């Protein structure tokens, strides 16, 4: 089982979720995050005080999947989030060594979906 973490642009969320649904990936956890990256934001000003604008709003997706779904998930995310512009974000894939469905207590591959 793999734990997929993806950071994407906020306005791509709906698109990505749609694409994931198409691949039968229904279970996703979404978090609002701030990204510090290559992409430079518009500097903000408040009277005399200037803000670097180095932290930009991003969306983080977390998806626990079985091996079979790793590639489909990645494709779905690329499909929905890729604009070719700086700031599109990243996908990280980590290993899961246990997964439990709280509702039922099921374990492992059956629990993840």
């Amino acid at each position, binding site marked *: 089982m793999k734990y997929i973490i993806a950071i994407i642009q906020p*306005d791509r969320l709906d698109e990505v979720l749609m694409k994931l649904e198409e691949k039968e990936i229904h279970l996703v956890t979404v978090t609002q995050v701030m990204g510090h990256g290559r992409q430079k934001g518009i500097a*903000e*000003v408040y009277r005399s005080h200037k803000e670097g604008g180095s932290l930009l709003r991003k969306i983080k997706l977390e998806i626990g999947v079985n091996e079979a779904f790793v590639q489909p998930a990645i494709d779905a995310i690329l499909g929905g989030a890729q604009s070719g512009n700086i700031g599109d974000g990243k996908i990280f894939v980590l290993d899961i060594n246990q997964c439990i469905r709280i509702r039922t207590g099921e374990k492992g591959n059956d629990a993840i979906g």
Partner: protein
Amino acid sequence: MKQKTLGALLGLGLSLGAWAQSPVPTVDVGAVTPTATAVVEVAAAAAAAPAVTVNTGNTAFMMICAALVLLMTLPGLALFYGGLVRKKNILSVLMHCLAAAAIVSVVWAVYGFSFAFGEGNAFFGNTNHLFLANTDGFNSLFIADANGVPAIVFVMFQMTFAIITPALIAGGFAERMRFPAFCLFTLLWVSLIYCPICHWVWGAKGFLYHGNADAWAKALDFAGGTVVHINAGIAALVCALYLGKRKGFPNRLSPPHNLPFAIIGACLLWIGWFGFNAGSELACDQTAANAMLYTQVAAAVAALVWLVLDGIYHGKATALGAITGAVAGLVAITPACGFVDLKGSLFIGILGAAAAWAFVVYLKPKLKLDDTLDAFGVHGVAGIVGALLTGVFCVATKDGMSHFGQFVEQLKAVAVTIGFSALGTWILLMLVNCITKVRADEREETVGLDVSQHKESAYTVID
């Protein structure tokens, strides 16, 4: 003999005085003829009195009403609109109200008032009041005068109307108009669209002013149904069409980012509306009192209507529905509040809200129209319904014409307003677009207008 006439004269003077709350002089009629002169002098003085005295009650009322109407825009409308957009666009919406207030206030003092209320002719005001010339003390041109209200108070009161109207339009182009274009548009629109219509409907010689004996249409518009709401609603519709849909409309819309803000705004609109409607009587009298109560009743019943319709259609009564209904009711009663009775205010509130609901909730999605905040759906639709129904429910028609006749007069005024506002707004938008791009480009829209137009964010994420 003499005594009789005298008695009459006294009675008259008395009632006159009572009506204008001015002191009533009486003369020694025991000492006959010789004082005839004295009598005359005094009578004259008595007659003149109302004009030269400030009626503190009416003046206090009008000044507070002006403050209440400004409260409708700052921060009432600003919050009502601002709460409904996305986090990344709220400042741009608040700025529409702030900038409109700043620009229009100056325009109004410099030439706007003169263009709108200068006597002029049936179509335009004149330049007699540039920089508020000839507005010291009292000026019989402005009805307020007869109520012992200084002309400058009338200027101030009307200014607040000129401020809120362009601010209302923002509902149509919110979340996608560039700020420089907005400023230019507002400047031109208030000068070339608002001032003329205001003159037609309320100017002493306006061709739509019921008080003008030789008006083309003797339309009843107590507090600005045509001038403010239909005018702004139509302009908003035109802006929405000219600017086109927002990115992601209609599939990827976000819900209101802060409904409590929208509700606070609606409440302040409601409160301020008393100044708007009752204040339009330009005096604190029975009519103003009625206008206030009917305004309240229409707003309340309209809110209930929207709640019920939402309940039937969506299965639940929504908070956004409650405030939208209330505003629709307030819009609908605006032209009528001084002319109808309780029955009329109830019907106008019900029908105004029902019509707005039908358009906004039922029809609009089919039209795929991106009127961001339903400025047309609420102010335009309910405004038109209210203006027409004023002809139906007014207690007394103009010159005792038939209610149908009055209805036709209303229809004429509404038609003229719609036509002029629609055409004029479209032309101005094209004009502005030649000077500075009106529509925000995709990137500006994506990152949000707050950052792209104002280099600010409304809220911090990390603290």
